[in-house]
């Protein structure tokens, strides 16, 4: 067994400045994935996708050798993907609260900014690292399961028939893009709440209250003004409208128009980014 000399001594090495973003993202991912709750929620987040795969498998008749003779295999249409991602949104919110609410708030509570920003790390790198890690995790329970379902669906064809990858290739950027928008926007909102709180629990409560209340308030405003566009102020309605546009589906009952939803989402993201940026400043290090 080797014996290491652990005495502290001076050392020389090339100091590489500028890799802070990846270092922060890596550590955030590791810290999140170490938690048992993250693993449980992650598994739960895949339930809709796995359920969809099971449904597809049974419906396609693969169990009975791909259905009755002359019958057609069952495949998901854009509408089903829209519904799948709708279900994922619930898990996305729970997961975002559980994983993201403490991401910056806990660092603030433990004065970790003093340790971070006394190093060659900029606040932009710090926020970017946290954001990347959270977007990655959220995408892993929204976009990734949807892509998995698409892969499963496209490959599920009777023997001898060509696969449906080429035929349904247009769904790939829609699923990926919408999953990314959904994950990125939610990550930005959660981090904005986290950065402005001193405790992960408080950030989670504020975030939950905000998004639970946004929908009834938006609906009420819609009723009062008689405008469907105002309903885009609600989190669910906003993403519903964007999803319908992405999957080329007609507007739902009293659904807000896509332009209004996109404008609300962009404005909310800009506001969240501003709140995030101004809360994470090295100059707050020492008071």
């Amino acid at each position: 067994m080797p014996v290491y000399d652990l005495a502290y001594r001076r050392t020389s090495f090339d100091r590489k400045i500028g890799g802070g973003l990846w270092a922060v993202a890596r550590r955030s991912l590791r810290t999140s994935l170490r938690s048992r709750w993250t693993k449980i929620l992650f598994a739960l987040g895949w339930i809709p996708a796995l359920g969809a795969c099971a449904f597809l498998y049974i419906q396609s008749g693969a169990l009975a050798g791909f259905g009755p003779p002359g019958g057609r295999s069952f495949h998901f249409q854009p509408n089903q993907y829209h519904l799948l991602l709708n279900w994922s949104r619930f898990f996305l919110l729970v997961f975002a609260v559980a994983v993201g609410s403490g991401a910056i708030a806990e660092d603030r509570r433990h004065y970790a900014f003093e340790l971070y920003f006394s190093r060659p790390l900029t606040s932009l790198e710090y926020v970017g690292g946290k954001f990347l890690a959270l977007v990655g995790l959220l995408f892993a329970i929204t976009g990734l399961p949807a892509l998995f379902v698409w892969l499963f669906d496209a490959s599920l064809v009777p023997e001898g028939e060509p696969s449906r990858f080429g035929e349904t290739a247009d769904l790939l950027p829609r699923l990926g893009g919408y999953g990314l928008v959904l994950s990125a926007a939610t990550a930005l909102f959660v981090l904005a709440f986290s950065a402005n709180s001193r405790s992960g629990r408080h950030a989670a409560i504020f975030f939950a209250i905000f998004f639970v209340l946004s929908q009834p308030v938006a609906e009420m405003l819609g009723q009062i003004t008689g405008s469907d566009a105002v309903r885009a102020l609600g989190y669910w309605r906003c993403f519903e409208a964007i999803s319908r546009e992405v999957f080329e589906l007609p507007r739902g009952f009293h659904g807000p128009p896509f332009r209004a939803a996109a404008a609300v989402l962009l404005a909310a993201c800009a506001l969240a980014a501003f709140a995030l940026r101004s809360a994470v400043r090295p100059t707050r290090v020492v008071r």
Partner: protein
Amino acid sequence: MILRSEGLRVTYGSTVAIDGLSLAFAGGRCGLLGPNGAGKSSFLRAVLGLVRPAAGKIEVLGLDTARRGREVRARVGYMPERDAVLPAANAVASLVHLGTLSGMPDRLARRRAHETLDFVGLAEERYREVTGYSQGMRQRFRLAAALVHDPDLVFLDEPTNGLDPAGRRDMLDLVRRIGGLGIHVLLSTHLLPDVEATCEEVLVVQAGTLRLQGKIEDLRRAARRTFAVRLAGDAAPFRREAAALGLEVAEGSRDGLRVSAPDTDGTALIFRAAERSGSIVTRLAEVRRTLEEVFFESLEASGPAPSPPGN
């Protein structure tokens, strides 16, 4: 020069935290002394490039902090005064992360994390979550965080805060050992004994300006030497003659006098005053001034702040 500031001015809105601070630190172990609100933390903040000075210039290790702040921060270590730790991480993971943020390769950061924890005496507790550490252990952890990336200069902000006597002694011993490794140390504190125990040089800051700078031994000896004098007989004639020779005489303890002499020839002047006044000196001893006396004298002194050597 390890650290140099010229005409540094730091303001927070209308509050002036540092007002034209010029100092130079050539290296070694130096104490940055000053009462609360003197501008010590603001100075460290400015040095680390975390606040933009309203005026003036700072150079650390020959690098201008305004233009090359990141390079400076890669080469300096900072032990914050506040209870700063990384949440949900053990000591090794925290130090590895902080090492990589300072530009260290992963493997080296891992090795250095173990070495540094061993150095500060946390080797046995390295895999415990830092948030579960005692106050003393957290202080050691913060010192390790300041050292993990092998800095050339460390800023220690109140490193003995909240420590018991044994912990304080160990921490001061570590500070001395850091200096022995060739790492320059700037110890910011309001505790004079800490500076006396660890530093060779001292910078006294008050109201954002430099009041005093020099080697601790020189400061103790500097200016006027003070003697405890006991006389046989009436002291009045001696007082008159002493005053005529430029000596300052004050009542001391145990019927003695405290006589301050303006130069190094103090004993000769005291004997000359005794001879002229017909007094007999029965006891004469030089009184060593503590750093505390020097410190308070510098703070109480009126007039403009002295300029640092080398400026």
